[in-house]
């Protein structure tokens, strides 16, 4: 098991091997389909994309006294093409669920980034690892807006690593 703290460096990426459990702490950002469409057109972003982590999630509304609502990963394959320009700008980690395209995987290796999976359908458990959430972009998108999250020991598994391994193919 590896513990990582954001922002993520190239040396961090070298540590990650497919199948291994990773606990992430620090700041991560949420984005799904519609937010990606907009993010790739932005010339400047309100957060540092270099070394950043994006979590593919659209949480449920938060209750009074909670840091966030239920927050599990959505399927990553829908963001395959849209993730490439962000990786080219320094996006290091993507957290989602499920297998992705071969084109994405090769682009990911080329850009020295890494794809992690969190378990789908356990949004209640995962929300307990999120310390705080703050809306930073695209409020009109509702659950699909971009949130800045502070996480503590957020549990993931390495799905694709830079060495060419794939958790979905190697099992």
């Amino acid at each position, binding site marked *: 098991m590896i513990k990582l703290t954001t922002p993520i460096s190239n040396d961090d990426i070298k540590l990650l091997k497919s199948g291994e459990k990773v606990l992430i702490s620090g700041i991560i950002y949420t984005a799904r389909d519609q937010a990606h469409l907009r993010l790739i057109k932005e010339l400047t972003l309100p957060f540092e994309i270099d070394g950043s982590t994006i979590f593919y999630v659209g949480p449920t509304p938060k209750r009074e006294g909670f840091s966030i609502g239920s927050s599990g990963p959505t399927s990553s394959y829908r963001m395959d093409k849209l993730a490439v320009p962000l990786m080219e700008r320094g996006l290091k980690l993507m957290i989602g*669920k499920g297998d992705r395209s071969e084109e994405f995987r090769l682009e990911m290796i080329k850009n020295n980034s890494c794809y992690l999976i969190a378990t789908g*359908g356990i949004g*209640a*458990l995962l929300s307990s690892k999120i310390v705080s959430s703050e809306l930073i972009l695209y409020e009109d998108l509702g659950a699909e807006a971009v949130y800045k999250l502070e996480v503590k020991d957020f549990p993931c598994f390495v799905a694709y690593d830079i060495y060419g391994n794939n958790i979905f193919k190697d*099992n």
Partner: protein
Amino acid sequence: MRTIELSNVTNIVKESVIKINYELDNSLVALIQKAKSSESKEISKSILSDILDNQDIAREGNIPLCQDTGIVVVFLEVGTEVKINGDIYEAINKGVRLGYSEGYLRKSVVNHPFIRVNTKDNSPAIIHTKLVSGDKIKLHIAAKGGGSENMSTVVMLTPTEGIDGVKKLVLDTIFNAGGKPCPPIIVGIGIGGNFEKSAVLAKEALLRELDDSSKDKTIKQLEDELYTEINKLGVGPMGVGGDTTCLAVKINYFPMHIASLPVAINIQCHSARHIEVIL
């Protein structure tokens, strides 16, 4: 004639959508526990263990099981001796609107295929209606997530492809879906009818009791064989491999045209959320 107040329909829908999004059915929890105890791969066992912990946290912590709290699907059976004053579809949608607002559930419905503006209250529900005898109304209410629905399919096989053709289609569909529909899954299969009937049969199959079997001997055998063969595919929990790919296989069928063998496969994620209520 028995009059049923639409406010009761609204209330029961509201309470049901909240309840199913916070509490996993005990029979499903028992199946996941059983799968966990027989799972041989360590990472897969740990995922099943997290799924079990998650449903405890959701039940006790007042937080939905999954962030995708679904689009609402209702199978509505109306007795012919029931009198309804007003629009029952509107009453159901009102229940959805109230439940998704008061229950802190995600609004996951958009208005148009391309404009895609959120309706902001998770309405409208998808409602299938049947007239039956009697003086009651039965609602089978489900909250269906998008990830598993996206991996579902309808294929028009030719009659001579037969059981082997159906088996190959089911196994290929589930193998290719991999981790995307959040396995361990429940597989609903509709065979026969026509194009749209097969899809409705598949959805209805997903709402059956987890421990039942088809009353038809051939269909039951196919359910059993598919259950075993799907679990040999090695997809495993969330697609990471292992012995646990599906928790149950349910097949519903209907007579069909001599030229056709329609097959619909509707995939349900491990968070199977539905309830039956009678008014």
